[in-house]
């Protein structure tokens, strides 16, 4: 069965989200958005999905602040963050490379990360490009730190980092990633070779599971179309053609 890389990542993220009360997805995150809608479709009990910048999948009525208020109160369970750079302590950089402020290459900015990384219990870091330019020993700019000293009020933080090669769990005690599973077709060596930071290597590293055909049908038939409002270009190219019935 044909499976696009985006479809695989969507299903992988959906597994990591699991059944929760409320998952929210920020700007420029088509794959997390699709994964959240898939997890919702598969949930057996009520699950809310908020896709910011969407009208249809967004039930906030108090303007842009409501997501942050909700997060501050612990009402959002899962959120996604990425990074131009991510380092081994899970610090993320969304601002640029080189010396701040006149960086070598400027990226959009930190968005809500400097707050949401602290307040949402389970933050899933997602970055499709697993390479040493992205996964660096030390980020050039800390948009949001991966961990905080104990006196800092911080109910939230990183849970896992997902790339096009692997799933790495973040150890909040040791402040380091641990390789959890490698995607089919890739090896532990390849992952380590393309990672710029040190990470823990457990005795057993799993292989990330592939989605069932029925799940792919659900994704293509029911989820893909719902992304068009927010991510029209992504919705056009990310999915394989649905199988004919």
């Amino acid at each position: 069965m044909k499976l696009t890389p985006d479809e695989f990542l969507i299903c992988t993220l959906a597994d990591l989200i699991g059944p929760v009360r409320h998952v929210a997805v920020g700007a420029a995150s088509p794959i997390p958005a699709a994964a959240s809608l898939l997890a919702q479709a598969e949930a057996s009990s009520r699950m809310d999905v908020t896709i910011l910048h969407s009208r249809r999948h967004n039930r906030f009525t108090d303007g842009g602040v409501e997501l942050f208020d909700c997060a501050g109160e612990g009402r959002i369970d899962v959120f996604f963050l990425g990074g131009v750079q991510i380092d081994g302590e899970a610090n993320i950089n969304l601002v640029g490379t080189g010396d701040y402020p006149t960086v070598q290459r400027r990226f959009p900015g930190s968005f809500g990360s400097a707050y949401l990384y602290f307040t949402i219990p389970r933050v899933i870091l997602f970055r499709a490009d697993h390479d040493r330019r992205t996964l660096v020993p030390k980020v050039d700019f800390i948009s949001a730190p991966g961990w905080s000293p104990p006196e800092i009020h911080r109910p939230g933080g990183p849970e896992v980092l997902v790339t096009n090669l692997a799933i790495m769990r973040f150890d909040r005690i040791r402040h380091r990633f641990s390789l959890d599973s490698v995607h089919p077709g890739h090896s532990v060596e390849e992952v380590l070779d393309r990672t710029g930071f040190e990470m823990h290597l457990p005795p057993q590293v799993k292989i990330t599971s592939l989605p069932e055909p029925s799940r792919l049908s659900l994704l293509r038939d029911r989820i893909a179309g719902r992304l068009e409002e927010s991510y029209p270009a992504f919705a056009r190219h990310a999915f394989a053609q649905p199988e004919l019935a």
Partner: protein
Amino acid sequence: MAGQTLVAAVILIEGEPPQVIEAATLDDLAGRIAPGSLLAIPADYGGVAMALTRAIIRQRNRGLRLLCVPTSGMQADLLIGAGCVASIETSAVTMGELGRARCFGRAVERGEIVIRDTTCPAVHAGLEAAEKGIPFMPLRGLIGSDVQRYRYDWQIIQNPLATGPDPIVILPAIKPDIAIFHAPAADEEGNIWIGRRRELALMARASKRTLVTVERIRPGSFFEQESTAAGALAGFYIDAVAVAEHGAWPHGLSDLYPPDLPHMQSYVEASKSPEGLLTYLDRFVFEAAAVPA
């Protein structure tokens, strides 16, 4: 005097305060924005006053200090590319799925504008403090980020109500000189229909002046019915209104029209070089026929 009283009486029969809307022009509105103003602009999903933005550029405004609430896209990028901007406080500037905001990127990389990086809820909190007339708002998170480290106007204090150590950031009120946005409609009283885009209310209430463009001015008052009152913003926060049909173009507006993605894509291409940007400005900003196809 009797005549004057009669006029008032007629209005009172309707239960309305005096009608106040004078439909200003885009140029009137743009002319009210002094060079160097702290100018609040909404995120792309709000109501972006693009027609007014083009008028601002045509008037060759300079030295604007942009406050993005809490991010921006083409609006900030275009103003920066056109040389109208001295500084920008923002959580992000991005063209979304279409790519990076190139004028913004170039200007920051070359040090041509001052960048004050922030994070979305800090913008909201600063405006909320202004809206309430309090000097600061506390906000969780932030501590240990470089966003916080470079913001010398933010302060970390010990939470006075905590028994143990509990550092927390307090953010000073942000009071923009002017807020501008585009909305679906105004009514005859000058009330604006913003629907659930309540951050537009926050911008208006926090700012010293608010200039609004709308698709149309409809008769009567949104406050005649509870169903329309719920999405309204009272006219007493609004200083001037101009009608600008398709005034958010090439951005979309609420459920009225979608973004013009081919045009925005062509903007992203054009903005990849300063020369391309100038060509874009000539064609779509300085020439009169800058209207959607």
